[in-house]
């Protein structure tokens, strides 16, 4: 495959990163628990005027955990992309962006000071922008890209301002030096700082109300959705809160805000997931919802549980996206669930992947998502008080999760096969006669690239099978690292990072067992409901839509967040721009604001006409050169 060399080079590079992460892990584990904190300084970046930013990396259990998840999942997604993107004309560009993303993400998780964190944070946003707009000939892709980018920049600004508030008290940008004085930083400034950090976290992790970019980000190629918009980048907010936990614990108000927003997001996203008909967008809303669990968890002090869910979610969500990519390829780019039916026989491998991913996402034991989600909710329950509301909402959403996940699976894989599925069963891959934009239906420029002349489907290509197979395995066993009362792999590994935490309320045994049973029951009930609604009696959903038309409209319109932001933010700025341009600028440029420049110009232009006639121009030139000559004359004679 010489044409695929860029893909292999990119994949090997990330695999090398993963290997290096493992080496770092081994050497870190060889140290005593107190010494598992290594800072490497490369060079001074901006150290002046009280600022002390260096290019420096921090290796501790938390950062190496993130590095392992990021580079590990990335390696598999790179492998998948080697085949999946094989016939795209932007193949090389794709991998250069994708590797830039992984670099940025690793920089983000390894940064040891605020400034470098912000650099990684923004680079990740830039890579995300580039990949969302990857098919840049599509107007929908470019507008989704700029939307994602601007919201991310808003998050960057939140991070910068939050840093200022913290820096004001600490006088240093270095993480470890800041955390050392965390207990002295209390007060309004720290709370403001943490709240502003949350703005950054919400923007990156697609939490309400900064979430609207994520569903649109599905304009990017599917491996991108798997890697960036499910497994890694969108979890950066979770990492941020976990990393900053010494500060957040001194600012309980910020913790509360984080927990509530996470909870609201997970419910709202779940309801939207029920009605979306675009395959990738269903998974996108599910991602929002799952990150809501994580944000809620780490904001309520359940750091290990939140990070645990981050890891298992990376496995099964990447798997689901890969499987979705496989179906979309078989549909020749079509993403609407309304058009997909009965792919079960045509794509058994993909079907199996979807089932495993779906079971893990729905929290069915013993799949990965079961342990991690229940641990978050058990820890939250253990906090007591108003946290019980979060607990209830968490399980309610678990029901929604199971329903929308299996709605998607039943609709795409069950029932009478669609023409595309039949074609595939007959051993032929469907090719659309005219490629159309999956969102607008607009006829595609053939130059767009995907799916290209000979696109591939997951079923037939080995690299994709390997990637999906490994992730499917991880989606099954990934949760076993941390089974309540049995294993504590992750908890004891992350112990050094969170040893100083003030949150130590461990859930009682009763709560643990109750939660696990409840989780399993809710998950199975959800699947059963979905089976009833979309397999046994598929006419019910239509009736429900009519019966609850108002609610349905609310969900279909995504709770009107896009419209709200349009009215509150976009329009005022657009209006300000128009008003400046059409009204105010005239006053300054032509009007009387500065003493009537136009009339002055009119008077002056007579002089200029003479100036242009030649004589005056030569005269002025001589005058100017003369002046310079005089300067030198004085110079030489002084």
């Amino acid at each position: 495959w010489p044409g695929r060399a860029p893909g292999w080079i990119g994949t090997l590079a990330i695999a090398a990163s993963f290997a290096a992460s493992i080496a770092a892990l081994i050497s870190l584990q060889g140290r005593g628990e107190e010494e598992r904190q290594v800072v490497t300084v490369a060079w001074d970046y901006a150290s002046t005027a009280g600022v002390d930013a260096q290019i420096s990396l921090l290796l501790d259990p938390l950062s190496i955990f993130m590095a392992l998840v990021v580079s590990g999942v990335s390696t598999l997604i790179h492998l998948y992309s080697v085949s999946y993107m094989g016939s795209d004309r932007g193949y090389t560009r794709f991998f250069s962006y994708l590797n830039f993303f992984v670099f940025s993400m690793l920089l983000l998780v390894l940064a040891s000071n605020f400034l470098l964190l912000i650099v990684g944070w923004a680079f990740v946003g830039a890579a995300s922008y580039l990949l969302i707009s990857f098919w840049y000939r599509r107007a929908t892709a470019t507008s989704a890209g700029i939307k994602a980018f601007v919201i991310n920049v808003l998050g960057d600004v939140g991070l910068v301002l939050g840093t200022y508030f913290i820096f004001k008290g600490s006088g240093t940008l270095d993480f470890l030096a800041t955390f050392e004085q965390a207990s002295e930083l209390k007060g309004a400034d720290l709370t403001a700082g943490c709240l502003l950090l949350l703005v950054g976290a919400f923007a990156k992790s697609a939490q309400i109300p900064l979430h609207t970019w994520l569903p649109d980000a599905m304009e990017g190629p599917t491996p991108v959705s798997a890697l960036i918009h499910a497994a890694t980048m969108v979890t950066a907010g979770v990492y941020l809160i976990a990393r900053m936990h010494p500060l957040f614990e001194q600012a309980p108000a910020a913790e509360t805000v984080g927990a509530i927003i996470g909870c609201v997001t997970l419910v709202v996203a779940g309801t939207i997931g029920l009605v979306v008909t675009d395959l990738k967008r269903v998974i996108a809303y599910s991602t929002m919802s799952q990150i809501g669990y994580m944000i809620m968890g780490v904001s309520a002090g359940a750091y290990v549980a939140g990070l645990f869910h981050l890891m298992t979610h990376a496995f099964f969500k990447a798997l689901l996206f890969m499987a979705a990519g496989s179906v979309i390829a078989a549909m020749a780019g079509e993403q609407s669930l309304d058009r997909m039916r009965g792919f079960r026989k045509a794509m058994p491998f993909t079907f199996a992947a979807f089932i495993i991913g779906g079971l893990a996402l729905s929290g069915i034991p013993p799949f990965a998502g079961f342990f991690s989600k229940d641990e978050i909710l058990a820890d939250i329950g253990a906090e007591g008080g108003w946290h019980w509301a979060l607990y209830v909402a968490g399980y309610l959403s678990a029901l929604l999760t199971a329903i929308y996940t299996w709605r998607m699976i039943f609709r795409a894989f069950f029932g009478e096969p669609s023409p595309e599925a039949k074609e595939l069963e007959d051993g032929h891959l469907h090719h659309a006669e005219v490629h159309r934009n999956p969102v607008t239906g607009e006829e595609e420029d053939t130059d767009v690239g995907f799916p290209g002349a000979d696109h591939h489907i997951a079923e037939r290509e080995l690299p994709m099978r390997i990637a999906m197979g490994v992730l499917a395995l991880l989606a099954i066993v990934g949760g076993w690292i941390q089974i309540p009362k049995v294993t504590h792999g992750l908890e004891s590994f992350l112990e050094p990072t969170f040893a100083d935490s003030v949150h130590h309320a461990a859930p009682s045994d009763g709560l643990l067992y109750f939660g696990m049973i409840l989780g399993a029951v809710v998950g199975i009930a959800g699947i059963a409901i979905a089976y009833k609604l979309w397999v046994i009696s598929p006419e019910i959903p239509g009736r429900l839509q009519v019966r609850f038309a108002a609610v349905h409209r609310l969900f279909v319109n995504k709770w009107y967040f896009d419209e709200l932001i349009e009215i509150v933010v976009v329009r005022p700025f657009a209006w300000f721009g128009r008003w400046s341009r059409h009204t105010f600028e005239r006053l300054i440029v032509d009007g009387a604001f500065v003493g009537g420049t136009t009339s002055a110009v009119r008077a002056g232009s007579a002089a200029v006409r003479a100036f242009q006639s030649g004589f005056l121009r030569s005269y002025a030139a001589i005058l100017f050169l003369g002046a310079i000559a005089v300067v030198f004359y004085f110079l030489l004679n002084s």
Partner: protein
Amino acid sequence: MTIHLSILIALPLAGALFGRYSAITGSVLALAYAIAAVADFDSGASGLQYVTDETWIAQLGIHYKVGLDGLNLILVLLTTVLFTASVFWIIREKVERERLYLGLMGAAHSGVLLALTAQDLALFVIAFDLMLVPFLFITGIWGPVATRAAAITKLFIYTLVGSLLMLAAAIGLAVLVKNQSGAEHLSFAFSDLAKVRLPSSTQNWIFLGFAAAFLVKMPAFPFHGWMPDGYRNMPLPALAVFSAILSKVAAYGFLRVVAPLLPDAMAHFQLLLLLIALASVLYGSAMAFSTTEARLVLGYSSVAQLGFIVLGVFAIQDAGAQGAILQAVNHGLVVAPAFFIVSLLAKRAGGSEDIRDMGGLALRAPILAGLFLIVAFANLAMPGSSNFVGEFMILLGLFQAEPAIAIIASIGVVMAAVYSLRLFIRAMHNRVGPDAESREIGLTNALILVPLVGIILVLAFYPQLPLKKGEKAVTGSIAAAKESAR
């Protein structure tokens, strides 16, 4: 090593007098000389280095005194870099009457270097005005016939008013200092003027004169009335250096002249100037994302960026001032290649510089698109670029002084993302416009653009270099004002 600044200042003009090749030689030698100066510069020492001090007009106490310190060192380097690029660009454009064009550019180059290195207020004021003159000629001769006359008249009137006020302020300052100190002779040397601190009410009046000249030249809102027409009519190779450098000389003037000589006035007018700068940031950004002329997007973006620089200066904090000087360099390094890219885009869009006539230009021009993307990201101060470090320092200084203004100003950061990316997307992405043609950048153009982008990248990795070189002089320049603001 002894660096003779007079040689540096004279080289571009001397070279430009004798046609194409000597113009190149003059600029390149000046660039090499500036690099040597930066390499040799002792950033540990305080005070001026490589000083030449000769009496010029003894009766008026005007000296020909030039010198380098951390304030102007990197700006001098920036000047030689960008003017050199511009010389190559002009030759590449194959303009009519190239020799005259190059001659004028050489004069402007020398004029800017003189203004930047001047250590005598009178010399500074003269150079500050002289450096504008070649640009008036260039616009008058090579600008679009129909509108150039109005444009240069407007530019001339604006700067004339500003300059006259500055001239009056400079003379007033020198005379009042002489009277107060009881010195025998009038002197304009900064070092002499700094010895005396005028009463703060007097400082205030003098301050206004300087501020007017600087704010017009930048330009800052609402003194930018000349800018749209001026930018529309100035040929791009000249406009690139005009926008990149001349505006910075004005920002530099605040730190060189106003901060050390009028510290109490600077503290007194701090809030007013911060508000003007804030308005420049917001208004400039709003205009930049609503206009469709590519060069005006850059023009209004400059208004906003210069607003940030003034915010940094008038935060009157070490971090802010350091950020301001760094940002002055960064913005120059970004806006010059941006104008170059606009010229390349226009060639591909049937001669139009309107972004509505562009689109899809990335299709067969991945290298051009990549270079443009780097410039666009740097322009919006993407973290990781040196521009971000500058902005971070500016806003940090401002946050220490006036947190509310810093928070409002940060809206400008988001707006910058909108207008920079909008420019990039409208030109490079979506489908190819009806009269547009996607074509890769040619080799000679790449030889001009790639080094400029390369400098942006190098600085992104090591912004510490300019920060460190400038530290002593920059913090020293605002020390008195900081004391007064407290």
